[in-house]
Structure formats: C-alpha cells, structure tokens
C-alpha cells in the first residue's frame, strides 16, 4: 500500500498534541470542505484531511499509525509482521497480504465499533451512497436519456476490511431534468450487508451550453433575428424547438426586444407539464448594402417621421 503522511497533510509536527491537531484540521477543513470550497481539487484534498484527522485524533489509531514508521510519501510499503501481530487481528490469523488494501482501511477495526471482523458479523451495514456529477444536452433533458459512469465501490470482504473495485453503472435519467437538478436513484449505490439497505446513487445534473437555446429552469430562450422589414410587415417565421421546428406568426410593427411566447415548447417538468419557449426579437442589419438598398433606405428616411433620439434630447435639455 502507498504511504500517506498524515502529519504532513495536516501540517503538524509528529509530536503535536490533540488540541494542535484539532485546530489544524478545522482550519483546513473550512477551506476544502466540498460544500464550501472553490478549489477544484478541494474534494480530494478534503478526503485526505478527513482520513488523516480520523486516524490522528484517536489514541489507538494514532499509536498504530506511528508504529508503521515514517516513509517517503507515496512509497509502496508493507506493515511488518510485528505490527500485524500487535494491531491487526486478521494478520494474526495468517492473512499476510495487504494487497488491494488502502492505508485508510488499516485502522478501521480499531476503537470504532471495536473488536475487528468477527463481532461485526451480525451488524447491518448500509451500502455506500454515491454522488456523481453528470452533464447532458438540452435534447437529452427533453427526451430523457441513459448515462454511464465508472464508480469505485468499496467492497467489504466480510472481515471489516475494504477492497476497492471499479464498476460501470448505467442509469436512466427520466424526462424532467434541467440545469442544477438532482436525482436520487434508490438502491443503485453500494450493496448493504447483513440486512443493511443498499446505498443510493445521487445524480447532480448540469446541462451543456446549447448553441441556440438558453436555459432558465424549464423555460428556454432563443434569439429571433428579424430584418427591419420583417418586423415592420410581420409574417410567418420558422423557429427551432427541441421537438422540431415550428411556425411562429410575427405581427406587423413588432418592436425590438419583444418576447414572443411559445407555450409549452420548453423542457418537460418532472411533476408533469412543460416550460415555455421564449423568442426574443432582435432587429438585425446586414453588414453590406447594395446601391439599390441604400437608395431605398434614403427614400425611407425622407418619408418617415420617426425620431428615435428625441426623448433623450428632451430629457437632458432640462439640465441648467
């Protein structure tokens, strides 16, 4: 197994007292706790911190850990036979291999729950819960989808020792997902033992940014570019929706910035019903014009009585 230096992880000396260890842990835990950290490595760091603290704060476990001696961080090593005899019952019974066992599992039988493997034989042990982040597309959220991931399960070998095993898990996300939504899949986590219930799988769902649709809960927004004459004259335009394109009627004299609502064309809601799709009108102009077009615009400028900046000038005229 790989050596982890718990004292270094907490940033304390090997002879630090309980108070110093507690203080060091709390300071670092506040920084890296998964619910509050901004650090992308925060969760992994926190796991190490928690492991170090659980071992060093307990007198028996700390003694057992100190007896392993000091090794370079990350170095592969095996506890000596003497260590095994003193601290590890299973080792005593001829189980001489520590293959596949993590350093953190070594102390699991000490103090907590006491007595090691045998006395745990009848206690129901609930299975591990898993929380996984998964990103799906807007189309997947619309139709529901299957997702797959690899999870590392800690399997109890029946004697209180954990063995890590990676397995691929498939899960179905029903219709109703949106950005930031969580789904609990019952019993899809680690297996329980001795009648303990199976753990659950929690999915933290996020939606991939979409080139056309913007997501707000179960409502969708898209920009609807219209040429000036389309906004002025009105007409029928084709608008994309997750279910396929639909025809939208633009009324004559449509103003820029208007929200045109396409009811129930958004994402399906998990409780039933659908969100809406909003088309935001944007009056857009080409980058280049032909001579004829410019001539027509000049004519329009002559004929029109539209003075868009008049209100602005009137307002500022009162400043003396």
């Amino acid at each position: 197994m790989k050596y982890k230096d718990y004292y270094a992880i907490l940033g304390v000396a090997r002879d630090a007292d309980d108070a110093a260890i507690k203080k060091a842990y709390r300071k670092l835990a506040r920084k890296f706790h998964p619910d509050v950290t901004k650090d992308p490595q925060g969760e992994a760091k926190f796991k190490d911190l928690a492991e170090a603290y659980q071992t060093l704060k307990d007198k028996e476990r700390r003694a057992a850990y100190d007896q392993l001696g000091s090794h370079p961080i990350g170095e592969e090593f095996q506890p000596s036979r003497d260590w095994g005899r003193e601290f590890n019952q299973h080792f005593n019974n001829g189980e001489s291999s520590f293959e596949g066992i993590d350093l953190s599992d070594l102390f699991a039988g000490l103090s907590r729950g006491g007595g090691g493997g045998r006395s745990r034989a009848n206690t129901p042990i609930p299975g591990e819960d898993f929380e996984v982040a998964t990103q799906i597309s807007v189309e997947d959220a619309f139709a529901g989808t299957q997702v797959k991931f690899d999870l590392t399960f800690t399997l109890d070998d029946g004697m209180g020792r954990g063995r890590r095993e990676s397995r691929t898990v498939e899960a179905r996300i029903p219709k109703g997902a949106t950005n930031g939504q969580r789904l609990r899949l019952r019993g899809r986590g680690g297996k329980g033992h001795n009648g303990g219930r199976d753990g659950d799988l929690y999915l933290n769902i996020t939606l991939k940014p979409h080139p056309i649709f913007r997501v707000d809960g179960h409502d969708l927004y898209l920009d609807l570019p219209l040429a000036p004459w389309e906004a002025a004259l009105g007409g029928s335009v084709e608008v994309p929706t997750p279910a396929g394109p639909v025809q939208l009627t633009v009324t004559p004299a449509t103003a820029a910035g208007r929200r045109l609502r396409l009811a129930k064309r958004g994402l399906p809601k998990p409780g039933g019903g659908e969100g809406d799709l909003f088309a935001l009108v944007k009056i857009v102009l080409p980058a280049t014009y032909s001579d004829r077009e410019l001539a027509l615009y000049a004519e329009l400028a002559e004929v029109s009585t539209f003075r868009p900046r008049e209100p602005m000038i009137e307002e500022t005229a009162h400043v003396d």
Partner: protein
Amino acid sequence: MSTNPSEALWLDASHSVTLENLIDLSGLSEAEVLELIDAGALVPLDVQAVTWTFAADCVLTVRQASRLRAGLELDVHSLALSLSLLERIRQLERELARLRAQLPVFRRY
C-alpha cells in the same frame, strides 16, 4: 405535489418526502433532524399537519447538513446558519442564470 415511482426521486420543490424519508436519507438521527427543524433550517410544507411532509429538495439540505456537521464538527446553530447561507447562494445563482438566459447574444451578420 406529485410522488415519484420508488426508483427515481427528483429532489426538487415540486415533489415531497415524509419526515421519515428525510431522516432515512439524511444519515442523521431523528433527534438531529428534529433539531434542524427546530432551528429553522428545514421547514415542513404544513406545520399544522399531523404527519409532516417536506419539499424533496430538503433531502439535499439534510445531506449537506450531515456532511458539514461531520466534516467541520459544527454545532446545530452554526449548522443552521451555514445551511441558510448556502441556500441564499443557490438562490442567487439561479437568479443569475435566469438573467443570463434572458440577455440576447451579440452576433455579427
């Protein structure tokens, strides 16, 4: 409010769970969950009801409470405060996402 088929549970405000579910899913004891309700960190949908039910997103709150308490060794009042601040952050993030969705994107034509 609708109830889910037992396999998949959407943890959002449009679904509900019982107090029993909440205790079961939280990893906390009944006493600890009741303490959180007492401190205002969890609010039943109808306080007067004989059997309390909660919005399903309370499951996220209790699980978060369980993690914070275990990881940071917080007492129940610090815990309730932390939970309410975290909820406020989530509300703000949702509002931001809403505003961003409604802003048109500049594009050259």
